[in-house]
């Protein structure tokens, strides 16, 4: 009896299968259809597309996506992968810098200060730099807050405070993106002249930038390290800005996959960017004597220039002599 029942079931199943097979290749709009037997199946659709999309009558096209299990992959990225990438990049960079500082200390001006200065960045350049830098720092902190705030900060200050802070951080992140983007564009335009890689950079890189030991490979206005920073800012900044605007104007230009992709690009580039900028800040501050002045007062000591940008100094000297310790207007240097 049991085996007979099984046989019947198998036979019915086979018939159903046969029906499906027969129904499947029938041309669309054919007369003979059994809509009940040929109904779409969830698992089949998911296997084919990993996304199920259909028609809805409301004009919101997003809502036509019935299921997108890749949301779970995005979650995995956001909660695990990104935190690893960010953690390794940022903490790794900090660690490297700490070790470097402890072993190498501040790179001193070997020949001491000459007392004579040279205009390195004019007021306009410094304004652009600091505008961009300020925005960047706030964007970085508010951005890192989104990824790391929940495990790190929330337990310390509590839900309400953290949300309040995060909300303001979000506003800041959204609004400061505009000056930041402008800054990146201006940086691109004003410094591109000195940042095209050339043969000197090869030599500079071969000698490791002179970081180890007391070597001073020659460099024009920007050495290869600075050029790297420039391109990181321009390309990285461009990417975070572009992906950021996609996120800020959700679904205007793309669907859910595009949004997820934009968020992945934005966050990965951003954490790497932050790591790179930490290094930049290090070199520009405690990493090297005399470096901060370049963006601080805009003038550097001639000896500093000789040690770090010998070719640039030569260029500048050829045009005009160094001043006598008095600050000179930026335009004067160019005369």
């Amino acid at each position: 009896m049991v085996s007979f029942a099984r046989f019947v079931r198998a036979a019915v199943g086979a018939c159903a299968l046969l029906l499906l097979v027969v129904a499947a290749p029938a041309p669309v709009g054919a007369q003979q259809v059994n809509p009940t037997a040929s109904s779409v199946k969830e698992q089949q659709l998911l296997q084919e597309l990993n996304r199920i999309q259909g028609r809805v009558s409301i004009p919101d096209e997003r809502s036509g996506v019935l299921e997108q299990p890749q949301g779970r992959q995005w979650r995995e990225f956001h909660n695990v992968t990104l935190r690893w990438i960010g953690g390794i990049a940022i903490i790794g960079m900090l660690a490297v810098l700490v070790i470097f500082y402890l072993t190498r200390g501040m790179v001193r001006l070997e020949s001491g200060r000459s007392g004579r200065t040279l205009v390195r960045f004019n007021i306009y350049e410094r304004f652009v730099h600091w505008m961009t830098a300020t925005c960047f720092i706030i964007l970085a902190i508010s951005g890192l807050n989104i990824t790391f705030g929940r495990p790190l900060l929330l337990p310390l200050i509590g839900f309400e405070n953290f949300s309040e802070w995060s909300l303001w951080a979000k506003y800041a992140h959204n609004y400061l993106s505009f000056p930041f983007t402008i800054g990146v564009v201006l940086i691109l335009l004003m410094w591109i002249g000195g940042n095209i890689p050339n043969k000197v950079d090869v030599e500079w890189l071969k000698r490791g930038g002179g970081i180890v030991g007391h070597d001073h490979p020659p460099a024009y206005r920007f050495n290869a390290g600075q050029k790297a920073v420039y391109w990181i800012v321009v390309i990285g900044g461009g990417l975070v800005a572009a992906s950021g605007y996609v996120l800020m104007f959700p679904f205007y230009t793309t669907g859910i996959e595009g949004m997820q992709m934009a968020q992945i690009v934005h966050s990965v580039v951003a954490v790497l960017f932050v790591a790179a900028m930490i290094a930049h800040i290090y070199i520009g501050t405690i990493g090297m004597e005399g470096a901060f002045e370049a963006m601080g007062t805009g003038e550097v000591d001639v000896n500093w220039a000789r040690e770090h940008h010998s070719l640039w100094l030569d260029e500048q000297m050829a045009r005009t002599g160094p001043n006598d310790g008095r600050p000179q207007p930026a335009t004067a240097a160019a005369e």
Partner: protein
Amino acid sequence: MARMKFLCDADRCIECNACVTACKNEHEVPWGINRRRVVTLNDGKPGERSISMACMHCTDAPCAAVCPVNCFYTTADAVVLHSKDLCIGCGYCFYACPFGAPQYPKVGNFGSRGKMDKCTYCAGGPEADGSKEEYEKYGANRLAEGKLPLCAEMCSTKSLLAGDGEIIAQIYKERVMKRGYGSGAWGWKTAYRETIES
């Protein structure tokens, strides 16, 4: 302990949208926010099926996992709720949600999103049950009144089921066994990491 779930029997769903307007009615949901929607697959072709979809109140909910401010919580009935006081409208839950459930009112400048809104399984929010504040932010709290979500209760063909997961799974299983066909418990594998064998 009960584990509340939704199940849409696509072989019964006729895209009548009762679930959608019942939700609007019960919670006075504003224009542009669709806590529930009906999607039609293979529209106009043999094999067409419509499925009513809202927040599925997932096991290990992705929205809750990715929320930067941790504004989600899960009730004893396994209903996934959130606090609009904490939400910052970042939109991350929408990227993570496999079902497109989170909705954002358009407020402020550019694409700036307001506090996220989604299906509450008619279970309100963190405020006191049935309070005016709760109603204004999240809508009615039927669960606290011993009632199930109105979308399922009003479903025209009893396609959309709500209630304890084991019971509605059993109902669906029996249906499939009785009638001999079923296109699956849509979203269950994704939401609850299980399927209904039939």
